[in-house]
């Protein structure tokens, strides 16, 4: 029996055999990198310019603006009067209470509509991904299709429907409208999230004797926190920024901030108070801006939270 034993090859000496690269690669500044950063900086400046103009204009006195100085200059003397005016005494028609009532209306509409739409969408998504009832796919198909329907097509029928129900121009009507239009995308969001969870979790819940609502509230909802953060951000900013539905459905008593802002800016009597308009616009934009700044990290985390393993 021949037995060949392979000798291990002579080990290489510890000092380096060949010259050349060794260890981690060095970071190099390439033309491409400079190009990318250059582009990003220019793009950022481009989008920040209007904000800058708004900010400095809102801090200028009206005479300084009317003098026609440079749009980009820092104010000669800073005044916060336009901000105070915009908030509490700017006039829309004969109503001179500023943006304040609009702000309160917007907070109400946004809070209620966000909660209602998210709750319904979460239940939708949960039922669609776990209970697989008859026609579930059809329901889902219709909902997804809904995401592609242009708003303008549905507005008139909705107005008629609301009128027939006798709630046109009331608080419930604006909440219902926001809920309806948020439904396709939110349901899609929740369905995809729940579908990414292990189905065994649902089965375990059933074996443990939990029913439809118990599984939903005690098992699924606590797990859905990341996607709910995304949904809240989407709805909060979407509803706050909405102008169209607010004009049509909210009615005078519940006019949201965006509509009020428009009315202030569009008022044609007397001189145009650019500084007040700028301040009012920034006040209106402050809420979504704050939401993005505070929740940016959460938003990305929620979007990325596809596979949550238990």
């Amino acid at each position: 029996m021949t037995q060949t034993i392979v000798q291990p090859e002579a080990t290489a000496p510890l000092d380096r055999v060949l010259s050349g690269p060794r260890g981690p690669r060095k970071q190099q500044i390439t033309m491409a990198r400079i190009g990318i950063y250059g582009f990003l900086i220019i793009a950022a400046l481009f989008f920040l310019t209007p904000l800058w103009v708004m900010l400095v204009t809102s801090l200028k006195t009206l005479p300084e603006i009317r003098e026609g100085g440079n749009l980009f200059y820092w104010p000669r003397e800073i005044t916060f009067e336009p901000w105070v005016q915009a908030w509490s005494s700017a006039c829309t028609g004969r109503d001179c209470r500023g943006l304040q009532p609009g702000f309160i209306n917007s907070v109400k509409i946004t809070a209620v509509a966000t909660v209602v739409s998210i709750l319904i969408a979460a239940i939708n998504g949960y039922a669609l991904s776990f209970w697989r009832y008859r026609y579930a796919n059809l329901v889902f198909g219709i909902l997804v299709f809904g995401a592609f329907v242009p708003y303008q097509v549905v507005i008139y029928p909705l107005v008629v429907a609301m009128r027939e129900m006798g709630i046109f121009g009331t608080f419930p009507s604006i909440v219902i409208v926001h809920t309806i239009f948020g439904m396709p995308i939110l349901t899609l969001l929740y369905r995809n999230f729940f579908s990414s969870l292990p189905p065994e979790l649902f089965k375990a819940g059933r074996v443990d004797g939990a029913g439809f609502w118990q599984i939903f509230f005690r098992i699924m909802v606590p797990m859905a926190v990341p996607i709910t953060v995304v949904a809240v951000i989407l709805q909060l900013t979407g509803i706050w920024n909405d102008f169209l539905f607010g004009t049509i459905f909210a009615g005078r008593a519940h006019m949201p901030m965006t509509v009020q802002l428009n009315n202030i800016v569009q008022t044609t009597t007397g001189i145009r108070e650019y500084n007040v308009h700028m301040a009012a616009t920034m006040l209106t934009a402050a809420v979504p801006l704050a939401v993005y700044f505070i929740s940016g990290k959460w938003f990305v985390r929620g979007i990325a939270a596809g596979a949550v393993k238990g």
Partner: protein
Amino acid sequence: MQTSVSIRDLSLSFGNTRILDKLNLDIEQGEFIVLLGPSGCGKSTLLNCIAGLLDIDDGEIHISGRNVTWAEPKDRGIGMVFQSYALYPQMTVEKNLSFGLRVAGFGKAEIQERVQRASEILQIQPLLKRKPVELSGGQRQRVAIGRALVRDVDVFLFDEPLSNLDAKLRSDLRVEIKRLHRKLKNTMVYVTHDQIEALTLANRIAIMKEGEIQQLANPHTIYHKPVNLYVAGFIGSPSMNFLQGAIQHESGANDPLFVTDSGLRIPLAGYPFAEAPDAGLPAVLGVRPEHINIADDNRPLPFQQQVEIDIVEPMGSETLVWTQIAGQTITFSCDSDVLVEPGQTVTIGFDPVRASVFDRESTLRL
């Protein structure tokens, strides 16, 4: 003895695909049954039907003498353990264990006592305040078993519970499940695609293929007397060698012969035929690699043959050798201390009593 689980004519289709077709299975009280088969054979589907997680198309399911065909999972007296553990991630171990009891509205003291008992049996008391993310895979699976345990059920259902664990942990938990079964004496139905798990754990194994149970027998019978070519090929690692040939009768001799397609004659003296096969019947001879030995002059084997070694695969505990008999590739295993080399010629042999002969046409055991 009353059966623990009885399944009668169970049928289930997904769309146009028939997953289970008139399946019947009786499981004795306290029995450990393993449903074994490749993925897509319907074994997990069957388990889900027993659990009540899938609505069936036809048939009946009885558990502990009750017809539970239409009952909700919670009312069937079952506990289930899943492959992905399926622990509720936002609850502590304690809450996970007690969730079912809390849903059912048990009293605080009762819940406390049951959780205590289950965690003692599974030795997870120190983990009770932790959340699932803080547990290792093995600990999570223990908690998952505990969740079935607290419910005080008659039947435990395991859906590939060890498949997500690494090899070392798998064999540890395997022993533990066996110990648990000895202690609790509950009926256990265990789904796996791992034949080692099946052979080590089961009282009886049900080998499934395309929604049908091929053989239902104890591990020894499954291994030594597979009923058909499929079972023979599925069980055993390395898998069984198959030689193509036919049955022949020799004038003057009682025992039939197996003659390979190339004409090699293998005597089948002592092979326990179910009934005497016809001469000339096309057949397949199956021999396990571990039943083929290198010939020993002191103990001659009923059939011996000189072969040239083709490839040698050392596996540590044994060495798997590839060679050819009568032009057909076969493998055999030998002690890893025996040094063999490709190209070397050795005499190997086996005892046909330990082999299996199958009808080539019907693939059934003869």
